[in-house]
């Protein structure tokens, strides 16, 4: 006899109309007073404000224009706004939940997050994880949300010792998780494209 647990509910695709429920403005109407969106910051959020920008591609190299992406990240101190974060250093920023959701644009296919650059986060067994943003991607044709992470190209040293990046055998695949910075109108933009399938396919995690 094995121990009886309940079974996780089966995932189903978010479908083409995911925007109705999770981003009604993009579906084309206004219903909620308070909308969840792609802006994670306010004027008082601590840390360096950045923009994450990218596109999502399918196995034919075509833009996926109906994807929804959620970001979950630590603040500039490397702390998550959640009581389960028991790190001893830094502190929670009350002006930063660390979560947001963005949609790829129906025309351009571009998604964006307005956020702060996260700090290093404790890993297992005393290791340190390089600054990263956790992503979850759903869309029509994706049966179960895909998990990946954004790392930052200008954190070379931290990336080198990051336990997750080190666990990716091929450098070419590791590079799919590295966002590259650029400057535009005095703002720092990190570009992070997501490739669902094929050459340069993004590394996705079984979390």
């Amino acid at each position, binding site marked *: 006899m094995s121990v009886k*647990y*309940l*079974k*996780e*509910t*089966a*995932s*189903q*695709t*978010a479908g*083409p*109309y*995911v*925007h*109705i*429920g*999770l981003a*009604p403005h993009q579906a*084309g109407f206004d*219903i*909620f007073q308070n909308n969840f969106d792609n802006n994670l910051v306010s004027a008082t959020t601590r840390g360096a404000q950045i923009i994450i920008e990218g596109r999502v591609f399918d*196995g*034919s190299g*075509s833009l996926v224009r109906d994807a929804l992406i*959620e970001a*979950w990240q630590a603040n500039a101190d490397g702390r998550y*706004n*959640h*009581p*389960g*974060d*028991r790190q001893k250093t830094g502190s929670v920023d009350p002006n930063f*939940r660390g*979560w947001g959701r963005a949609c790829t644009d*129906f025309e351009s296919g571009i998604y964006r997050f307005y956020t702060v650059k996260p700090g290093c*986060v*404790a*890993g*297992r*067994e*005393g290791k340190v*994880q390089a600054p990263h943003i*956790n992503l979850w991607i759903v*869309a*029509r*044709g*994706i*049966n179960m949300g*895909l998990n990946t*992470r954004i790392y930052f190209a200008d954190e070379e040293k931290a990336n080198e010792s990051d336990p997750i990046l080190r*666990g990716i055998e091929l450098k070419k695949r590791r590079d799919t998780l590295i966002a590259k910075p650029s400057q535009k109108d005095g703002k720092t933009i990190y570009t992070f494209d997501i490739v*669902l*399938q*094929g050459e340069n*396919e993004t*590394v*996705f*995690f*079984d*979390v």
Partner: protein
Amino acid sequence: MNDLVSSVPPAFLKDGANPYPELYRRDYAAQSPAYAPIYKTSVLRSPRNALLSIDHSVSETTGPMFGQNELGMLDNDLILNYAKDGEAIGPRIIVHGYILDENGRGLPNTLVEFWQANAGGRYRHKNDTYLAPIDPNFGGCGRTLTDENGYYYFRTIRPGAYPWRNYVNSWRPAHIHFSLFGNAFAQRLITQMYFEGDPLIKVCPIIKTIPDEEAIQRLIAPLDLNASVPDDTMAYRFDMVLRGRRSTLFENRLEGN
């Protein structure tokens, strides 16, 4: 926060120990594979490389929290939350149930979001071109937080079936989409609820991507006459399960922020 730390057995706090109770590993045998050719859109949108299995850190075992103050009074009433000059048209229903984890415990204060087509099978979405009419008084989305026992409920109209381009003559069974958070980002889940007795369920390619018949049955909400409001609204019961944690030390500490 300090309370929480002091309640944790020393093993969890030692250097090198796990920072926080992990989630149980996902049972992929009861989940759709990414590549499922009967659902044609999955063919080009499914990764070909194996997923990289990672041990959980604080990045996976924590997740966003939400408060009641972020929701509106009518957010869980789809009959009224987009009403302009009348109420939404269609069979009035209540959908209710528990969000549990694999240990059978209710997940309190967790955000549940839902969306659906109207009674004619038409979505209020700029990309939906089905000929069935838009209902001017129906938005088709809502959200709520579970109570301290993981219980949720909302009121809506029963959605209609609609055609979609997979095979010629493919029709989606009536369904409501659900988005669930739990209390860790690794629990994040989107699923769909179906209605007991719908003959389209057994021919739906999207449902058939699930390789486990019992898992399919768990997506079908039974009629719940006990929860129905006589002369007013029928009820359907739909419980959902998110991944469990190795420890329940954290229970009752997930207040909204």
